[in-house]
């Protein structure tokens, strides 16, 4: 199941949804807010989502993972709103009989979540300015260059 969360993500509750007596392994990815991006010191982030479509697309990603890989359960929660350094922005978990499929499915999900869901991230920098990640234009950037995300 895919969910958007307006408050802190409860990783323990997420993890419990992966339990299955046939499962031999779980792989979990947690994305957390870093204190820098592209060399600039970051104070906090705002995530904004087009929620109805983000949920629909997130559910589609999880369904695809369950079809492509030999896994039992797949769960994802993405947070929206204002986040501080160290806060968890996204939690992805997969359980499977064997670990290879769990690793592959977890990575498939987080890659797709990052590239396909209508969710945006505004970084607030230590120098006082802010910017929407991946959305810089010549006009918005001015002299300083900090566009593009390498993740």
């Amino acid at each position, binding site marked *: 199941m895919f969910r958007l969360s307006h408050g802190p993500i409860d990783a323990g509750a997420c993890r419990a949804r992966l339990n299955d007596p046939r499962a031999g392994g779980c792989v979990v990815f947690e994305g957390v807010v870093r204190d820098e991006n592209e060399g600039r010191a970051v104070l906090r982030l705002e995530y904004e989502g*087009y929620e109805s479509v983000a949920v629909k697309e997130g559910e589609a990603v999880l369904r695809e993972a369950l079809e492509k890989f030999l896994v039992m359960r797949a769960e994802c929660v993405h947070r929206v709103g204002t986040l501080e350094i160290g806060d968890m922005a996204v939690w992805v978990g997969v359980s499977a009989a064997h670990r290879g499929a769990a690793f592959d499915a977890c990575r498939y999900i987080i890659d797709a979540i990052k590239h396909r*869901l209508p969710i945006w*991230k505004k970084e607030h920098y230590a120098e006082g300015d802010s910017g929407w990640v991946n959305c810089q234009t010549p006009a918005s950037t001015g002299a300083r260059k900090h566009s593009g995300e390498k993740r």
Partner: protein
Amino acid sequence: MSAGRRVRVQYFAVLREEAGRSEEALSTSANTMGELYEELRGRYGFGLTRERLKVVVNEEFDEWSRPVREGDTIVFIPPVAGG
């Protein structure tokens, strides 16, 4: 020329800030989603060109060539950055 079609447009992230609003109802003579974006870009001065966006109509990703129809809910999707 036919009368304008009434549609709802929602704005997110950088487009929301540039438009100064989260959504609006408007009447347009644009024939396609591509034409509608250019119309709104002219009005609000959006920095992002169309090649960097996607378009969602009635909660489904769609083509820029899709005709604008009465009652559509339209969202232009800036480059995403989830995760």
